């Protein structure tokens, strides 16, 4: 089964300011502000020039940052990733199942 991988969209500008990330799909925007856990997940997402990360990898990274069990963040990461993709801020890449 193909595994979905994610990375920041190449047409997205991003600025970090006092722990918040401000991101926008170019050229029109709007500007989205990511704070708290949203900012953490964004920071763990590979950039557009890096290899995309699978959901399981992302969950592990975010859980490690938050100091919680991966099961505690699995659903939230999935929701957030879907939300980012719907806003055009994230690129979804399919890779063959392992």
């Amino acid at each position, binding site marked *: 089964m193909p595994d979905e991988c994610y990375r920041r969209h190449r047409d997205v*500008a991003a600025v970090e300011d006092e722990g918040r990330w401000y991101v926008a799909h170019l*050229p029109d*925007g709007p*500007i989205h502000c990511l*704070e708290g856990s949203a900012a953490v997940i964004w920071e763990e997402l590979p950039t557009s020039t890096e290899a995309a990360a699978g959901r399981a990898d992302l969950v592990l990274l975010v859980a490690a940052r938050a100091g*919680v069990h991966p099961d505690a963040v699995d659903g939230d990461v999935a929701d957030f990733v879907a939300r980012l993709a719907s806003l055009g801020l994230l690129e979804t890449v399919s890779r063959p199942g392992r």
Partner: protein
Amino acid sequence: MSPVVVASGRNNAAVTAEQQAPVSMAVRLQLAHAAVQWVAARNGIDLLHIKGYALDPTLREGRSSTDVDVLVRPDHVRRAARAFTDAGWRRVIGFETGSAFSHSLTLLHPVWGYLDLHRLNPGISQGSFGRMWERRTRAVIGGFPCPVPDLATQRLIVILHVGRSHPSPRGRRDLERVWYEATPGEQNEVRARAEELGAQLGFDVAFGRIEDHRDDPAYRLWKVESEGGTRLEEWRARVHAAETLVDKVRLVVLMPLVNVEHLENLWGRPPTRSELVREFFARPARGVREEWARMRRPDA
């Protein structure tokens, strides 16, 4: 400006809430530089990001900006103006009416704010873009690599800006940072760049040496810009500084025309036909009044 979505966590890793929040000017401008570069790259436009967040951090400290300034390769200016308006920017002030140097087109975007599209940098000869482009470096702004002038040219651009502004505490601070705090080697590089880019007049104006250039065709223009003057003095200086006869004639024709864009920006609506007629006659009258007041000044 645009709505902003805030995604905030309910607990350590949840993403649930969305609400509106303000975005600081600093953040908006950095994203704006990225948006401008995105449009330039998509349309094959060569431009250099100058001033503001495009400045090296060592030169930027203490300076604030409110817009994005870019210098466009002269051959690409028309294409750039079209590309930005196609991408959602709206023309606010045209080249001829923006400043005495007729150097920039001001555009406005509902999300990114103001963009000053320069077809020349006042003080630098118009044919110098190629040399500036060859020496360009990159600054990552909003996550996007943006072409910027090399450090010595960045210093020169700030100095030239000080030169064409009335003396102010900000100007003095800028000179302090980009010139007096520079090493002798860095200052020599700036001097060399001023010579290479035909910027000696503007460079000297910033240091109070304008009278060394009385024979320069642009002398009067810099005199008016740096020390102030009436509308008529400014137009005379612009005509005098124009390099070709065609440019001089165009300026003389433009002079009495009403600046419709200016009125629209001032009033927040387009002027009516009768208001344009009234303004057409009022404009030269204002110029004469200013000239009369200047002549009656004791120091005139």
